[in-house]
């Protein structure tokens, strides 16, 4: 009876496929190979695309998330020891300049260094937003004001350097407020997420095989040397000839740019976002102008210097003007501190905020 029903069913047009001879094994194998190939390619890109925005965000912006991890740990220490929790945002000058582990005592505030390379008002705002999203509420926030990084006519200004590869979908509000062309940024972010293996290959290789990349393409140098407080070690000592070379380089770069300073409005917006949020959350906020060597200070024209000071004071928060705190020997290149320079500066900085 069963056999008869099967025989009848097989006569139906829709089920004629049953009667087709089975394809040779090699064809089945080839079909599976093709499906396996495209399926895997799609799956790898999809998993990477989703993963880098969710559970593996470190792959997308390791520099920030390594700092964040350390900031959370430092905050927990502060809470556990009933000390003040301070987070300092800024550029490489902060990253190399704030070295709490070398000088802090049990009674000092616990500082977390959130200095990101190339960061001005815009990226500081991004880092601050993300830190708030993580749930961390420090007692005090210090942000950096450094004119060259916020000078819109300077080629190293962050407005030209903000990399869409490091941005996350959760940064949408920041992108809309601060990126020069938000729609273009969103388009680029979508493009990057279509083929993350290709578009993010330098970031991924920086995690997997950094030594295979040319030094200037490596991202891991921004986070692997960090200490537990987020300090990025600068040079140990700098001899006079190397310092002279570095100063000559900085003169070539900074003198013309500081002679025609024009504040990037987005940087001001970024700093104001941090200030307003801190005020709303009851977090103390200060602005710091990091130490500069005497040569660099001489590059500012009087008008530019006055304009910068006016702008910094216009932010309406207490200002730490540390420009002249250190001698020239504390600098590697007139604006990045040496390791001993960082220790000396951090001690003075701790004393200052303790007041």
């Amino acid at each position, binding site marked *: 009876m069963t056999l008869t029903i099967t025989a009848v069913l097989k006569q139906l047009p829709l089920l004629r496929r049953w009667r087709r001879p089975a394809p040779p094994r090699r064809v089945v194998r*080839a079909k599976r190979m093709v499906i396996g*190939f495209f399926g895997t390619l799609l799956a790898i890109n999809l998993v990477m695309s989703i993963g880098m925005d969710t559970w593996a965000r470190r792959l997308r912006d390791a520099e920030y998330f390594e700092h964040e991890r350390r900031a959370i740990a430092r905050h927990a220490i502060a809470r556990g020891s009933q000390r003040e929790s301070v987070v300092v945002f800024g550029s490489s000058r902060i990253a190399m300049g704030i070295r709490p582990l070398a000088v802090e005592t049990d009674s000092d505030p616990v500082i977390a260094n959130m200095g990101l390379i190339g960061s001005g008002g815009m990226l500081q705002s991004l880092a601050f937003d993300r830190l708030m999203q993580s749930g961390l509420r420090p007692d005090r926030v210090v942000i950096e004001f450094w004119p060259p990084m916020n000078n819109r006519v300077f080629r190293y200004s962050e407005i030209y350097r903000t990399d869409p590869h490091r941005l996350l979908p959760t940064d949408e509000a920041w992108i809309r407020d601060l990126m020069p062309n938000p729609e273009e940024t969103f388009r680029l972010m979508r493009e990057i997420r279509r083929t993350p293996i290709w578009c993010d290959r330098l970031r991924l290789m920086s995690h997997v095989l950094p030594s*295979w990349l040319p030094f200037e393409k490596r991202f891991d140098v921004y986070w692997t040397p960090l200490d537990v407080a987020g300090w990025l070690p600068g040079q140990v000592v700098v001899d006079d000839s190397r310092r002279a070379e570095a100063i000559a380089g900085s003169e070539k770069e900074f003198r013309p740019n500081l002679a025609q300073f024009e504040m990037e409005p987005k940087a001001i917006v970024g700093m104001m976002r941090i200030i307003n949020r801190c005020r709303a959350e009851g977090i103390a906020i200060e602005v710091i102008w990091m130490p500069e060597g005497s040569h660099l200070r001489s590059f500012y024209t009087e008008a530019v210097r006055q304009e910068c000071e006016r702008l910094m004071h216009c932010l309406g928060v207490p200002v730490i003007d540390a420009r002249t705190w250190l001698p020239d020997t504390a600098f590697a290149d007139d604006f990045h501190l040496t390791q001993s320079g960082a220790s000396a500066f951090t001690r003075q900085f701790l004393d200052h905020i303790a007041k």
Partner: protein
Amino acid sequence: MDAMTVFASTAAAPWASDWAWFRTLHAWMPEPFFQTSGFLAFCVSVLGIYWLIPRRRNNLRVAWLVFASVQFYAAWNAGLAFLVTATTVIDFLLARLMDRLTQRRLRQLVLFASIAMNLGILAYFKYRGFFLNELHELLHRAGVPPGYDKLDLASLLVPFGISFYTFEAISYAVDVYRRTIPAERRLDRFLLFILFFPHLVAGPIVRGGDFLRQARRVKRWNWLRVQIGLQYFALGLFKKLAIADRMAVFSDPVFANPDGFSSNACWLAVLAYSLRIYCDFSGYSDMAVGVAHLFGFKLARNFDMPYSAVNVSEFWRRWHISLSTWLRDYVFIPLGGSRGSEFATCRNLLIVMAVGGLWHGAQWTYLVWGLWHGLLLVAHRQFRSMITSLPVVDAILQTWLGTVMRILITFIAVSLGWVMFRPDWPLATAMLAKMFHIGGVGLPLMPHHRSLWWTVVFVIAVHALMRLWATRRTGESLPGAVVGVAIAILVCVAHLFAPITNSPFIYFTF
């Protein structure tokens, strides 16, 4: 890369490049490189429409492929796409005429016209600058005013792949003349033979007899072909991105300024360049073969692990096979081949390799490179005849140690030749001088050259495995899905390992 873009925008036929359609195409696919996203989109679109055309309309499929191939070339330079198409049509008509004629003298005349046209165009675009500049130099030295300025070779427009399709057209005309194959009756099929985009710009050099038979055959969708095509394409992509482009990072700075680097760095750069040129060209060939398979065409294999060759003669049976067989069939054998005296054979070898060298480019360096290989072939021939009288030495050379040694010597000899395989004579000689100036001071190779050594180890391991046939056996016994996953991972690794800048394929310029 930039120069190529400039070439494309300053096309010889501005009336063609001014059309909005070609400008859009150019923006989409500025260079005809297989590893770009523009090409991927182009290929998928062409493939989709190709297989949607019912198979009973094979002529429509062929016409579609011809149209797509012209667009592929026109995306880079519309004016030159028209030129290539026009010369192909003339080749078709001349071959038809030759086929109809019965008088030998007239057939010879038509053959001569066909070859003269193809070589004339090749000479105009590729060799004009070189010969005019050399003549200028000669006249200048003789104290005779040349009456014209030297040409800037870098600014001369050389159509992509001109040497490849010229040789294809010549071989077709000769085959029709010899009545080895009949002249193709349909223009669309002949156009496809020359213009088929996978082999148009950098080979393999296909033969009319092989390709036209395939163009006539009605093709069915075949999963096996798709599998083979994808495998070839993925392998080619890996060779190009993960090996060739990575090696370029090490070789290019040293070749550009050998005086600035140490002797060791120069030797390492030559090693890197040897790997680069092999993986670059064979990678391209693999991709071309793979793409052709997706359309149901089988192109000739162009490489067969040339660096595992135990002598130079074997190297040329494994390297750029489509060119070496072309030179054998259309130059070496007509010259008398190896049938004459020993002297005549050696002379023929030198002539063939000199032609092969000049085929690559109009520079003294390419001629020297060709002659170097000619000398190596002659030397090997003499050594082989000498060794027959020394059976003990021959037996030692046949052991595994002897084989490894022969492979190594062949590789070094070939690699030394690559130093000349660059269009700059002073830099090539400076490089050789630095290589043999033991202890020559200068910069060592970049600090990240660890990847160079790992790549070398990887290539040696793959060659060893392939020689032992181990991979083939393993590959055939693995389930299809596993092979698919492995190839997808290979593609992802190729993408990860690719350096930040894409280097153009070396052989596109030939």
